[in-house]
């Protein structure tokens, strides 16, 4: 301690200088905007470099954990591969099987005009004949069914949406499989009605209503909405109120569905009818 004291007294000049210089520099760096900014920026960039280094190091140290996670993910994805499932089909049959023919093709489109407040609402999209759109194609959004193409021009198409009193869709209750007819009553743009459900069917609230796939327009199982309420009408049938899953008020992107076998199905059905 005495040595330290002696050391300080012997070099008091240097210590005093350092002290006064520190006071001066503190004044400089605290009361001059320019110097303060430079100091702050330098500190920040040094901190940034250090942080990056530390982050890289941390990343390196957690490689084992990351590897494990990736491995688990790989396993999960691999298990979903079609090759992982053993087929039960007889090979002879498979040669005539159309299961691997693509049936539905989706064409993305942007809504350019839309109405929800009329009885005969229409939606216009920015894809037309040159994009391969044809009449009677189904239209869906990421949330569910939108409608059916009714008019096409070179670059645009009009859709008759679910929210049009002229449209009727074949729909089924996902849980029980019973199907009925779906239409809009023209009142509430969030709700449609599902009728012709046989009274012996099991219906309950929160049942999902999806497309039946009987019409050759929509694939089966596309969401339409949820049953909100139901009652028996006309003796033997249920009438259900369905809350739409698609919000038509903010619709902006839709997909037009091309069914590669639509023509074939319709032709076949027509011959049956005329015979």
């Amino acid at each position, binding site marked *: 301690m005495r040595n330290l004291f002696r050391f300080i007294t012997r070099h008091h*000049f240097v210590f005093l*200088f350092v002290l*006064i*210089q520190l*006071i*001066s520099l503190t004044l*400089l760096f605290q*009361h001059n905007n320019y110097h303060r900014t*430079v100091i702050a920026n330098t500190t920040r960039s040094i901190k940034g470099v250090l942080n990056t280094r530390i982050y890289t190091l941390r990343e390196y140290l957690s490689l084992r954990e990351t590897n494990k996670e990736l491995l688990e993910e790989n396993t999960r994805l691999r298990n979903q591969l079609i090759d992982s499932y053993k087929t039960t089909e007889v090979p002879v049959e498979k040669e005539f099987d159309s299961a691997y023919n693509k049936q539905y093709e989706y064409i993305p489109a942007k809504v350019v005009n839309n109405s929800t407040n009329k009885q005969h609402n229409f939606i216009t999209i920015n894809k037309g004949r040159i994009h391969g759109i044809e009449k009677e194609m189904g239209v869906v959004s990421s949330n569910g069914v939108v409608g059916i193409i009714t008019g096409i021009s070179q670059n645009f198409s009009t859709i008759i949406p679910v929210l049009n009193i002229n449209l009727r869709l074949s729909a089924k209750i996902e849980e029980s499989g019973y199907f009925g007819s779906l239409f809009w009553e023209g009142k509430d743009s969030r709700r449609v009605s599902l009728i012709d459900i046989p009274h012996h069917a099991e219906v309950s609230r929160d049942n999902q209503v999806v497309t039946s796939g009987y019409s050759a327009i929509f694939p089966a199982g596309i969401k339409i909405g949820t049953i909100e309420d139901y009652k028996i009408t006309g003796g033997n049938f249920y009438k259900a109120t369905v809350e739409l899953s698609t919000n038509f008020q903010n619709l902006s992107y839709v997909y037009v569905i091309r069914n590669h076998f639509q023509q074939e199905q319709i032709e076949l059905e027509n011959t049956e009818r005329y015979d």
Partner: protein
Amino acid sequence: MNWKTPRDMIEVLPRNILRFAVLVFLQVFLLNNIQLSGFINPYLYVLFILLLPFETARWFLLFAAFTLGLTIDIFSKTPGLHSSATVLMAFLRPYVLNYLAPRGGYDPGTYPRVYYYGPGWFFKYASVLIFIHHLFLFYLEVFHFYDFFFTLWRVVLSSAFSVFLVVLSQYFIYRR
């Protein structure tokens, strides 16, 4: 200061206070307002540190330098800048004096002036300390090394001009 005789008390202190005031006045109201060719800034005020008596206590040197620098800083709105450079210069003054000491040391009763030790000695003494002061001051002011040689050029020219003024002052004001 190291007061040895009543003469020091009566003569040296008031003379230095006056010198302090005159140099600050000159620096703040005259030299700070002239910029020769855009980037030469002479700093004559360091003459105060240069002319303090040989016997001045070293701690007093530092405090005097800090006070002088801070006074200049207050007038030029750069707190810490001039005080820092001036304190560094005052810190180095004893070592420079030691290095430049004539054989047999400095005579008692003399001051670090041209009158006592000649223009050659005074020029060396002044230019070394002024260069250090300016070097530190200018780099601290720009606070980066991007234009290193541009700043160095400013330091050299400004130092030359300051030294010129300091030496000139010896012939006009401090004859004795």
